[in-house]
């Protein structure tokens, strides 16, 4: 589904990713771990198409060359990024945002836009699955949400938009154990044979709940080690320092 070949990315003329290869197939869960400053978030940003990066190399997503696509086109093609710091948009009702977002994606998929009633029914269902209070949906988008609420909102959006590839950028950071479980349950309930996940994290913690097929260690802009779920546990004991 996602093939990255020799990806280099720099921002403000500083090289961050220094030749990264990654191959994610349908139905797989990949985790990327690594110390601060290793380029984890840069990878998420570059995949989503965020402005400001100079890139080299190849990224193909479902056979399409991603590099030429705008941020929203990538999203419409089924790429979802759960933000490390979800943005607050004052004055914008969460439901309204979610509906606009869903209908943009549906339109790109050639599906009919949902009317308000159908949408509300759908979003209520999804919110219930994640144990999210309905009241939260009529509040301004992320404004005054706690860290946990913001992250749950990201997972809600993921389930709503039904992406092919979901990238979770340190979604576990700042979460208490209950919120972590909700996020993990959300991911596990959405995971199926037709989609894939790329989970970026510092800690093994989240991987206790979401079992990855592969763990990659990113260091100084390159993947230096790839292993199965046991690698995470090993890293927790030995740290990153002993790897390089």
């Amino acid at each position: 589904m996602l093939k990255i070949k020799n990806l280099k990315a720099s921002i403000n003329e500083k090289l961050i990713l220094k030749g990264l290869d990654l191959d994610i197939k349908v139905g797989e869960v990949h985790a990327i771990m690594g110390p601060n400053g290793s380029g984890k978030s840069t990878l998420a940003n570059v995949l989503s198409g965020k402005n400001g990066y100079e890139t080299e190399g190849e990224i193909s997503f479902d056979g399409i060359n991603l590099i030429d696509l705008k941020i929203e086109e990538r999203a419409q093609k089924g790429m979802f990024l759960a933000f490390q710091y979800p943005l607050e948009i004052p004055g914008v009702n969460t439901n309204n945002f979610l509906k606009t977002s869903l209908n943009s994606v549906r339109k790109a998929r050639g599906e009919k836009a949902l009317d308000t009633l159908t949408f509300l029914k759908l979003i209520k269902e999804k919110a219930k699955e994640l144990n999210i209070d309905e009241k939260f949906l009529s509040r301004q988008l992320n404004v005054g949400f706690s860290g946990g609420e913001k992250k749950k909102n990201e997972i809600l959006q993921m389930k709503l938009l039904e992406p092919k590839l979901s990238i979770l950028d340190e979604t576990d950071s700042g979460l208490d154990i209950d919120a972590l479980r909700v996020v993990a349950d959300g991911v596990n309930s959405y995971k199926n044979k037709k989609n894939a996940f790329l989970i970026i994290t510092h800690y093994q913690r989240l991987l206790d709940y979401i079992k990855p097929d592969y763990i990659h260690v990113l260091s100084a802009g390159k993947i230096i080690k790839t292993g199965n779920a046991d690698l995470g546990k090993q890293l927790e004991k030995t740290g990153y320092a002993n790897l390089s």
Partner: protein
Amino acid sequence: MNNQDININKDYKYGFTTDIESIRAPKGLNEDTIKFISNIKKEPKWMLDWRLKAFKRLKSLKEPNWQKPKYPKINYQDLYYYSAPKSSSDKPKSLDEIDPKILETYKKLGIPLVEQQRLNGIAVDAVFDSVSVATTFKDELTKKGIIFCSISEAIQKHPDLVKKYLGSVIPLSDHYFATLNSAVFTDGSFVYIPPNTRCPMELSTYFRINASETGQFERTLIIADKGSYVSYLEGCTAPMRDENQLHAANVELIALDDAEIKYSTVQNWYPGDKNGVGGIYNFVTKRGACRGKNSKISWTQVETGSAITWKYPSCILQGDNSVGEFYSIAITNNHQKADTGTKMIHLGKNTKSKIISKGISAGFADNTYRGLVDINKKASNSRNYTQCDSLLMGNKCGAHTVPYIKNKNSTSTIEHEATTTKINEEQLYYCNQRGLDQEEAVSLIVNGFCKEVLQQLPMEFAVEAQKLVAISLEGSVG
């Protein structure tokens, strides 16, 4: 939309006729022009005298020039002061002659074809719905004793009311443009709501026959008698074609004891082209007097058009416990300029005022909030709350906030909050990542920024205004 939407009924004798010869006063600002206007409107002598008094006063006044946006000198002797109805030869023959950009906007706003033609002054030899609707409305209003007519008609039919209230909020000698208007105004609206009456519908110039082509010097007078309520809508979300460069309208509102007036404006006059050539100078004087106790006047404005917008809809809070509100969105794009805000003059005890101003600048535009809050010595226990937010899009536009605050009463309080923000790249990125394109994202964020003001608009107006906000800023990011 197609031509079948026009309900053609040529036999209807009250339908629009376009064969009337154009009647025009000769160019120039002088007593003869004023007499010409007064005469053609068959005005009583007191009205002419009033106009002439204003004209006399005008000669001793100077055009103000303290405002931020500057403009080339206007030659007042080179203008026509009366030209109505315009002859059909002056008008565009069809929509083909209209700027395609304007037509594009109509499409986005979903304005019906007939309405598009009306807005552009195209002769429509057909009776369209709004006219018959207006007649029905008029009947209903008359039953309740509500007067809603043109100011010219009111001068003829309700001279006592006009004499009593005209110029009582904006005096003859107020300032240059207001005085100019008093001398040469050609038409406008008149509303009177009798005591203890709630006007059953939103009054709008749209529903008044003869509403269009009131010209550049419009005059509006609204009186809400004791215990009454009225909501008045001015303007239209669709862009209006107009050859007049200068618009100097006067609007006076009077609320007596326990009365409430809500006045909403959507102004979308021609803003000039991308390079700042052409466009309307919108120099309007709007002022309301909360004359009675417990009265309330609320101004809501969405200003998206005009090359220069220069206006301060104000409230004079005379009655004890009276309330003044000002909700404003001013959007300037390309080379547009706005210098707008309000004046809240607290005279009565326990008077309250609230100012919410949202200024948005894009392109090379310049947007100034200028406002005065003046709490008089006798206005004890009065309160003002002001919030001015500016949103900048890009690096070449400007936002300025100029608050004047005077509190002469120690029991009264004034709060002022102001913020200036740039449209946040991260917010746009977040929206894009959720599948929204740049325009949808900007529209969503800006409408969120303006929400407190948009909420004040009557429902059907609010939906269109939201679309308009987005359209006004198209192409301003990215």
